[in-house]
């Protein structure tokens, strides 16, 4: 995704302001004033029709940033009241995405459309290409009958003038499982029973109309309390800022966390456990196994393709193992996973060891709000050294590779990757489940985001630069040691 477009920057500004408001001691009042502070009287109206609409949208963005559901908003409740609720709630909301109703453009429904470029040619390949008889000629031009059209795009492919286009609805187009559709009024709505929380809709909407329900206020409250708060930083963090992972960790300490752990610690456990699981399955005669650490993929198996379940490794995720370690090492601590991922928030809500999830953008906003300059931070020393392969979990291919190395050459490992989920891949995976076989390899790594976690929906850095940063840090680590008793 693009990490610096206006919609993203707006979201970050709202977050910075709310954190500042929380820290000011005058939280409710300042939260209430947010839309007016961001768009004061007579201010320029950069994006929408008028200042009032901009403010209304900012109000809804702030509701999400305070952890509320815009779906349940009644338009009348003040932001100060949302802020108060955030201070009092015992648990964050149990779903992670919300549609910023007022920001949603209500895009025209997705369809195939003949533009003015149509020359009404004599060949008329579009009419013959259409297998559904949906194209006829009216007034010398091709016209598509919406009732008959199946959106197969054959006509688009044959038009010599490229006169036929597909009108997309970006969020619907991005969703790998058709979980976001239009409601009666033409605005987006998320079907929670299908949603993988992958964040693809959020990353793709040009109006910034899908948002995460943040747990930032809950986290700030934990930091303020006298409990120990542990930040568990995902491997993707190594490429997120211009400074080293050790400096970012010190930044988190400055921001009030007590301890920082690398989630790569848990990834080492995942790699070893998964290698063992894999060896057992292959011995049993299974044809393939898939990895289990991508949270959106786990949701996909649960909600969309349950047939795949028997082929998914039983291994828990690096986040889970790390949080379990944290709770053992520091009894009574509050655990906060810090990562690039929207789906991890959903996984965290269901994990007994994970208390909260903060994404990289929110972490960045925290640094901005507290004026923490990372370049000036010291190098934090982690208690445990993590392996090269664990640090590479954030890159496509990294997880499968870790299983291979952790297997120590004892089993035939043929890794393959599903690099990014989309409807086509989902259908293909269904056929593997039905046949009990994957033609591409015997260990299938699945990453919902193309490129791996460095391409998550809540990142700070460009994914190519981020990937380089992760690889450079990984190269400083030692190879994972295969378990002897494996």
């Amino acid at each position, binding site marked *: 995704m693009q990490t*610096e477009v206006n919609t993203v920057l707006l979201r*970050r500004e709202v977050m910075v302001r709310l954190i500042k408001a929380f820290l000011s001691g005058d939280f409710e009042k300042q939260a209430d004033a947010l839309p007016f502070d961001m768009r004061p009287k007579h201010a320029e109206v950069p994006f929408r029709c008028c200042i009032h609409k901009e403010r209304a949208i900012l109000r809804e963005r702030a509701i999400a940033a305070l952890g509320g559901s815009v779906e349940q908003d009644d338009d009348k409740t003040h932001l100060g009241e949302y802020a108060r609720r955030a201070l009092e709630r015992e648990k964050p909301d149990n779903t992670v995405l919300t549609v910023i109703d007022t920001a949603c453009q209500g895009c025209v429904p997705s369809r195939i459309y003949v533009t003015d470029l149509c020359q009404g040619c004599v060949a008329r390949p579009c009419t013959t290409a259409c297998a559904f008889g949906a194209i006829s000629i009216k007034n010398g031009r091709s016209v598509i009958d919406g009732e008959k059209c199946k959106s197969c795009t054959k006509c688009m492919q044959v038009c010599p003038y490229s006169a036929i286009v597909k009108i997309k609805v970006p969020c619907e187009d991005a969703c790998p499982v058709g979980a976001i559709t239009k409601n009666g009024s033409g605005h987006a709505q998320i079907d929670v029973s299908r949603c993988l929380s992958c964040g693809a809709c959020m990353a793709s909407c040009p109006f910034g109309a899908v948002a995460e329900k943040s747990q930032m206020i809950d986290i700030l409250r934990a930091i303020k309390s006298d409990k120990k708060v542990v930040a568990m930083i995902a491997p993707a963090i190594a490429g997120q*800022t211009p400074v080293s992972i050790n400096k970012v960790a010190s930044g988190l300490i400055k921001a009030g966390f007590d301890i920082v752990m690398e989630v790569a610690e848990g990834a080492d456990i995942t790699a070893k456990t998964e290698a063992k699981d894999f060896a057992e399955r292959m011995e049993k005669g299974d044809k393939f196994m898939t990895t289990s650490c991508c949270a959106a993929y786990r949701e996909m198996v649960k909600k969309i393709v349950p047939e795949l379940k028997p082929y998914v490794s039983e291994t828990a995720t690096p986040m889970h193992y790390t949080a379990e370690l944290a709770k053992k090492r520091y009894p009574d601590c509050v655990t906060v996973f810090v990562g690039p991922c929207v789906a991890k928030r959903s996984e965290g809500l269901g994990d007994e060891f994970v208390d909260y999830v903060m994404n990289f*953008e929110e972490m*960045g*906003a925290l640094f*901005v709000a507290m004026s923490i*300059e990372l370049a000036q931070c010291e190098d934090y020393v982690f208690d445990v050294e993590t392996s090269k392969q664990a640090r590479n979990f954030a890159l496509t291919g990294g997880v499968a590779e870790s299983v291979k190395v952790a297997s120590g050459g004892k089993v035939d490992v043929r890794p393959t990757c599903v690099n990014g989920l989309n409807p086509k891949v989902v259908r293909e995976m269904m056929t593997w489940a039905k046949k009990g076989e994957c033609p591409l390899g015997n260990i299938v790594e699945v990453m919902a985001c193309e490129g791996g976690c460095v391409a998550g929906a809540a990142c700070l850095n*460009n994914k190519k630069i981020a990937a380089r940063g992760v690889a450079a840090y990984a190269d400083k680590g030692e190879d994972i040691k295969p378990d002897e008793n494996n």
Partner: protein
Amino acid sequence: MENEGKIRVRICLGTTCFVMGASKLQELEHLMPPEWKDKVDISADTCLGMCQNSNSGFMKAPFVKINDEMIGGATVEKVIDKLKELIV
């Protein structure tokens, strides 16, 4: 000196600027016309101190300094436009 006479572009990659949009500016060198390469000297800096000027200084981030001029709310387009003025 190698960089003498070149237009000096200092991109702030301090934490505030980075979070508020400077990550894109890292690509400036690849996004500007290649023939500018020997006319422009691009470097990355840590905090230029601008973001701390007031409580809402962060809103004007990211900052880029072109020769002696400080540009707030910098985008690749804005920087390229400024460079165009200076180059022709």
